């Protein structure tokens, strides 16, 4: 321990103000405070501070994601064993999956760290631990066999265009992780939006997600019947709840996502208002579409509210992406509206335009854009109240 302390103390002298290496101070500060909590003291009132800091806030989000990683790895192995029709132990499945997940994870963090640190040095801002969350989220939204160079491109795009050009954490408009996902979705469609990519199998193996089934039915039927007719995977509600279906690495197991949501809400990090209202928005819109389904031959309209909740990455998106504090609404009233519209838009994009079966990504990005506008109107009503009082 003393040895480490010494290293940091010595290297710290190199990056002091006025020294040739002073440009590297933000990087040194970030590394130093990872190992030893800062001994920075309060200088004026308040002289005492809460023990919570940004490092811990961001670490807790990452902590909530770890179970999704482990299950995601297991699921890759499990679906692969189904495709190959072999028996494998739970551990063997997980290890098989990890050989896919870890490279993606490493590439994401390397790309993310390069971008964040470079910008911290150039723009002379501190390294914000928020990039760890973005980097932890990106692999979970990927299909397992996505090419690593694409991951590198996507992450760099997400961090730079989604965050740094707006000034870094705190001033970004779009969720960086979703920006990365959207970039890859449109830049490399065959590898990420195709319906063959969601499970690892032999060449030509098709691992379609649940959403693709009512989106491209051979013959019109209700979604429930189509799911029941699917022989390749078990798309029953229970199985979709437990997540043993193809999909992005982290999205499939709803138990872990709900657990993560409860954990983050309990800790006071994620906004329950956004999660709650987006679920309400999704359920109401899905219900409305069910009523209209009789007038259309679009099978997507027949997906029941419960199925909408369980299929695709809606829950993952709303819990971990929509609640991102910087890009969501900043007022509590605004958060209700913001979340509700994410739910509504998700169903609309999913159902009306089957070319984009996964609507939640676009729904959140669109609402990221409108969040400041929602806040503007919420705050205007507060201003009007104050003006009326003054009159």
């Amino acid at each position, binding site marked *: *321990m003393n040895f480490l*302390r010494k290293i940091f103390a010595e290297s710290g002298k190199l990056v002091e103000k006025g020294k040739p290496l002073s440009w590297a101070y933000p990087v040194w*500060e970030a590394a130093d*405070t*990872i*190992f*030893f*909590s*800062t*001994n*920075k*003291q*309060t*200088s*004026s*009132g*308040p*002289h*005492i*501070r*809460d*023990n*919570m*800091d*940004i*490092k*811990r*806030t961001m*670490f*807790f989000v990452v902590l909530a994601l770890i179970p999704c990683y482990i299950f995601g790895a297991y699921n890759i192995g499990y679906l692969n064993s189904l495709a190959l029709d072999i028996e494998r132990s739970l551990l063997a499945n997980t290890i098989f999956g990890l050989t896919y997940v870890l490279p993606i994870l490493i590439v994401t963090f390397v790309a993310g760290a390069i971008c964040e640190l470079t910008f911290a040095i150039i723009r002379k*801002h*501190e390294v*914000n*631990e*928020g990039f760890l969350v973005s980097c932890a989220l990106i692999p979970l939204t990927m299909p397992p066999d996505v090419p690593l160079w694409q991951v590198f491109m996507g992450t760099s795009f997400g961090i730079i265009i989604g965050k740094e050009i707006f000034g*870094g*954490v*705190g*001033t970004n408009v779009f969720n960086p992780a979703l920006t990365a996902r959207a970039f890859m979705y449109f830049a490399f469609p065959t590898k990420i939006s195709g319906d063959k990519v969601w499970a690892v199998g032999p060449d030509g193996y098709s691992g379609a997600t649940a959403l693709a089934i009512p989106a491209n039915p051979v013959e019109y039927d209700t979604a429930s019947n189509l799911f029941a007719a699917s022989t390749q995977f078990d798309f029953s509600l229970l199985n979709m709840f437990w997540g043993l279906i193809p999909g992005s690495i982290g999205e499939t197991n709803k138990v872990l996502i709900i657990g993560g949501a409860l954990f983050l809400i*309990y*800790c*006071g*990090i994620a*906004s329950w208002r956004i999660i709650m209202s987006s679920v309400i928005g999704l359920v109401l819109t899905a219900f409305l579409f069910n009523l209209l389904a009789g007038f259309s031959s679009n099978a997507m309209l027949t997906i029941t509210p419960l199925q909408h909740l369980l299929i695709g990455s809606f829950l993952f998106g709303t819990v971990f992406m929509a609640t991102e*504090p*910087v890009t969501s609404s*900043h*007022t*509590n009233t605004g958060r209700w509206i913001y979340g509700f519209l994410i739910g509504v838009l998700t169903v609309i994009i999913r159902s009306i335009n089957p070319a984009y079966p996964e609507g939640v990504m676009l729904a959140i990005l669109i609402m990221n854009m409108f969040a400041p506008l929602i*806040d503007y109107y*919420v*705050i205007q009503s*507060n*201003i009007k*109240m*104050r*003006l009326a*009082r*003054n009159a």
Partner: protein
Amino acid sequence: MQKIKIKKGHDINISGLASRDFSSASNPKFVSISPLDFNYIKPKMLVKENDSVSMGDALFFDKNNPEVKWPSIASGTISKIVYGERRAVQEIIIEVDSESEKNNDSFGELNLSSRTDIKKFISKCNMWPFITQRPFNKVVNPDDEPKCIVVSLADSSPLACDLSFSLNDKKDDIVSALSVLKKLTDGPLYVAVRGSNFAFLSDYDFVNLVQVEGPHPSGNVGVILNKVNPINQNEVIWTVQGAHLPILGKLFSKGEYDFSLNINVAGPAVNPSYYKSRMGIQFNCFKSSLKQDEVRIISGNVLTGKKIEIDRFLGFYHSTFSVIEESYERPFIGWLHPGGKTRYSVFNAYFGSNKNSYDFTTLQNGSNRAFVPVDAWEKVFPMDIYINSLARSIEANDVDEMEQLGIYECDEEDVALCSFVCPSKSNVGSIIRKGLDTIYFDK
């Protein structure tokens, strides 16, 4: 009686609360008054070093408002005038002559029936600095007509003096102070109390009693006003420190100066207690109660007080010395710490964290980072103001928006808890002060 209930906020459970008992301390040899305790004044001295002064004599006046003069809070000799940069007066230290204090003259029979008479009397005895105004938290301009006057006897800040104890034997002086203050405004005189404390005030119809309930900052003047009678643009309200009521009361009723003040010395690094003391007392008098060497002494409470050296003095508006440990500790991977009794957080992110009597130190517990709006400020800020947007408009220097978002209702002390909980370790109080300064110097 009006009742207000505050839900948003937090009572910081810091250890070292003084029990309701007076200890004795050595008599002070020096007291001081510092122009730095007053916002927006330009002091011009009226005395020199080695001049002898009696209680109430004018020491200096404000060049912006010459009618406002500061009284000597002791009889004795001006022992030192401390100058800072560009010869700005920082402190006037008076050597106390306790013999001459005993023979202080009284003003005799007073006529305080009309508002003009009262204002004349306050000017004559140099007592305007005891009355401050919102917005801006500065000494009042005697020519203003305040919309109302507020006195909080329900201070909720951490380790604050329990006024229901420290003012227990001063009922008559409190009533005479309030009866005179009421005549300074056409509006109501709000007096905030907690629970059944100061119940005797309900017998007086010139007092609008407000019973407050809930965690800090429920006892702050700004918060009470926000609930009962919000400040609008171009309005001014006046306020007096609850602890100062007996000083004003004795002057208004008997015509005598008496700057004695019951104070408390509290905090984790000190043996806490109440003391019968006086304004502007030197901390040295309580040196023996310190538990350790590496301490930070704060004049005022831990949220809004001022850091002072051990041989310095109590601030003009303060009645508490808080003492906490000056810590330089660097725990290994502290952000990974599971929790337990060594951590304190309003977030539920430390499991089994301390919820009662925690030994706070001066550690900031995290590095400064860009602001991430995790809804922390809002949980401890009870006013109907979007504090996050207000802070942004201040950073953007947008005066119109600051006014629209209600900056006049806020003061540093009202947002101190926001800084306390902020994971990005922002200082919201200094942002608000910056906004108020911008507006003040604009006009």
